[in-house]
């Protein structure tokens, strides 16, 4: 340790140049090799007391000898090929060119999908409600107009795709659009996977036994939306039966995306409505104000007097 003070910088420099000369060796093998060399270089340096380079010769020669003795052959590709060269080499390889060609043939499928995604993403962004019978169709005014909007968008998107094939100048603008819509696929897919089940399915089910959990006229409920008399959607409303039983809504399996309310003691609350869901990977509620497309009627009965708060 006594001589270590002036030695390391010399060893480090030498080692760094050996490392650089072995840049193409797989990282884990190179690290093992250099760890071996490092310990030995320290001993060489402390025994000779002089420069490591004077003792061992140029680091590049040392690296070449190390490589040959360790049976590591220099890789064919130069290690320092830039990103641009790499991409060009990839793009020119026959396999990639083939894949690109078949991708080109499949492009029309994407054109149709992106038309739908554009409409669905705009509807999501605008917080539009969705058709109950056909959960994939947003209501734009109503579900029928929503469906028409989708058809128009798909047709326009295909026309745009065909036009871009003849118009190379449009490629850049279109690739920006494609990236944006590709990103929009994620929220749309999340919405579709969480949408309320079509009401049609409930008509087919013949209820001969008691439905476990929460149901209305034998139809299982997956949510309840309470509104105040002035038409405001309420949040986190706790519902109970006359016997004081919480109207718990629990899925058969644990859903990590469901927003669960907790009591102070840490207990889970399953009778808070409406049930809300998180955006995957976050604790942000997905569309916290989404609700059914209802018009709360004007109420003429005078409201009950509000109970004074206090205990």
């Amino acid at each position: 340790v006594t001589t270590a003070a002036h030695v390391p910088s010399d060893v480090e420099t030498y080692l760094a140049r050996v490392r650089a000369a072995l840049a193409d060796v797989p990282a884990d093998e190179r690290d093992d090799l250099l760890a071996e060399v490092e310990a030995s270089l320290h001993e060489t340096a402390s025994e000779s007391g002089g420069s490591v380079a004077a003792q061992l010769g140029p680091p590049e020669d040392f690296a070449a000898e190390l490589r040959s003795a360790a049976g590591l052959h220099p890789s064919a590709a130069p290690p320092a090929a830039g990103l641009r060269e790499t991409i060009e080499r990839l793009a020119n390889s026959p396999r990639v060119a083939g894949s690109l060609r078949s991708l080109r043939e499949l492009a029309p499928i994407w054109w149709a999908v992106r038309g739908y995604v554009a409409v669905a993403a705009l509807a999501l962004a605008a917080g539009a409600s969705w058709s109950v019978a056909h959960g994939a169709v947003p209501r734009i005014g109503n579900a029928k107009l929503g469906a028409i909007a989708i058809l128009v968008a798909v047709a326009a998107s295909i026309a745009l795709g065909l036009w871009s094939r003849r118009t190379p100048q449009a490629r850049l603008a279109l690739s920006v659009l494609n990236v944006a819509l590709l990103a929009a696929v994620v929220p749309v897919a999340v919405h579709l996977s969480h949408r309320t089940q079509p009401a049609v399915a409930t008509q087919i089910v013949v209820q001969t036994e008691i439905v476990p959990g929460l149901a209305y006229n034998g139809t299982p409920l997956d949510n309840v939306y309470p509104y105040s008399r002035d038409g405001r959607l309420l949040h986190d409303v706790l519902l109970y039966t006359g016997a004081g039983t919480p109207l718990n809504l629990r899925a058969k399996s644990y859903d990590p995306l469901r927003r669960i309310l907790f009591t102070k003691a840490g207990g889970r609350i399953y009778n808070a409505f409406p049930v809300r869901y998180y955006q995957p990977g976050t604790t942000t509620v997905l569309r916290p104000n989404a609700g059914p497309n209802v018009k709360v009627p004007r109420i003429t009965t005078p409201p009950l007097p509000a109970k004074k708060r206090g205990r």
Partner: protein
Amino acid sequence: VDRSQLLRGTLDAAALAVVAEQDGYGYDVLRRLRAAGLSDVGDASVYGTLRRLYRAGALTSYVEPSDEGPHRRYYGITARGRAQLAEARTAWADFSQTLSNLLETDVEVTA
């Protein structure tokens, strides 16, 4: 013939023999090879050879802390290494005998 060229084909056997005698770390193996008379063996050749023998399963390795400088990676011989060493011994004995016979025969040079 250059000694270093002769060494190239036989360093595996020499390194295995040194480690078989007693476990050692890189610099230690180098020193013992040199002390045994292989004074011109290259540092990098020994370290590279040890790593290659280790990768091939002829050596095991373990790390021991050192009072001076970084940890030392010790190498020990495995059953596979011993088998390889035994094979090298036979081959070398055979080869050196043959070559000795050839080189020691006085060839009459006619003018």
